[in-house]
């Protein structure tokens, strides 16, 4: 079985390198696509911290899943002890999430927002209709 797998993998690599058309990519094709403009300044690779906070949230749950899988396999063997153990573990993981959200990892609201609690508006509620006064009407 293993040999078949390895053979298939290497076989597909070899086939694609042979059959694929070999073309020299032009410069503009490799340039990053910015809506048709070739950018003059290279974008800095330093991203603001907010992006990394969101990545941390993902990693927390990633680790949690890594531990859930072996538990799920042996769940019947571990019995109630396993369930309590995993519940405890996920509570601890959830605490880190609470900390991150408290730190403001998910509050991405813009700097300037008019009013927080704005009354829920319909298409009629915030507009005024101004009908013509008699003085305007000529005929």
């Amino acid at each position: 079985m293993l040999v078949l797998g390895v053979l298939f993998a290497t076989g597909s690599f070899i086939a694609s390198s042979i059959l694929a058309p070999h073309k020299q990519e032009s410069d503009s094709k490799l340039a990053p696509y910015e809506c048709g403009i070739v950018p003059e300044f290279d974008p800095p690779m330093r991203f603001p911290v907010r992006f990394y906070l969101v990545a941390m949230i993902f990693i927390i749950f990633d680790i949690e899943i890594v531990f859930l899988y072996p538990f799920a396999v042996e769940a019947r063997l571990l019995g109630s002890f396993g369930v309590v153990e995993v519940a405890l573990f996920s509570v601890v993981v959830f605490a880190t999430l609470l900390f991150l959200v408290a730190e403001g990892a998910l509050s991405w609201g813009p700097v300037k927002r008019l009013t927080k609690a704005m009354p829920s508006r319909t298409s009629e509620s915030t507009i005024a209709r101004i009908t013509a006064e008699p003085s305007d009407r000529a005929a």
Partner: protein
Amino acid sequence: MALEDLPHNFLTGRLEDLVRWARRASVWPASFGLACCAIEMMATGGADFDLSRYGMEVFRNSPRQADLMIVAGRVSQKMAPVLRQVYDQMMEPKWVISMGVCASSGGMFNNYAIVQGVDQIVPVDIYAPGCPPSPETLMHAILTLHEQIRTGHILRRRDNEPLGEATGGDSVQSPWTPEITTTVRLGTPK
């Protein structure tokens, strides 16, 4: 050794037809909407003149995922290099429909600001007449392009393209993107 060196015979005949049929049936246009023709292109994509009957209902916005560039509208001198850049960044195989008389030949604006015909910048496959071409005209242009794809070559562009003859598969530059690009920049016309 690549696809283009395959001998055209009975065995490979079916393969080419299959490839051509697959390409013809799902051409995805890049929405290169410039002026009034862009509104007609949107109307063609709308409910009444449904483009998705040809498998084209998705207007891909990035050139990386598009096969067909519909140049819809007049191309100004400032827009010419951008058009060339987006065309170069499209994946092969790619085709170009020049929609409307302004794209095809400068139309009624024969002045300093408009490139007189987009075929001075990119090789064009189909010219759709009209100002703006009505959705039926655009669909007829698309059907003609499908016919061209079905009867064309797999890896080379049609031979009678005016710009930079395609010298078979061996030219370093891909046959879809001709080497010489003549972005016309009229300075001060005398």
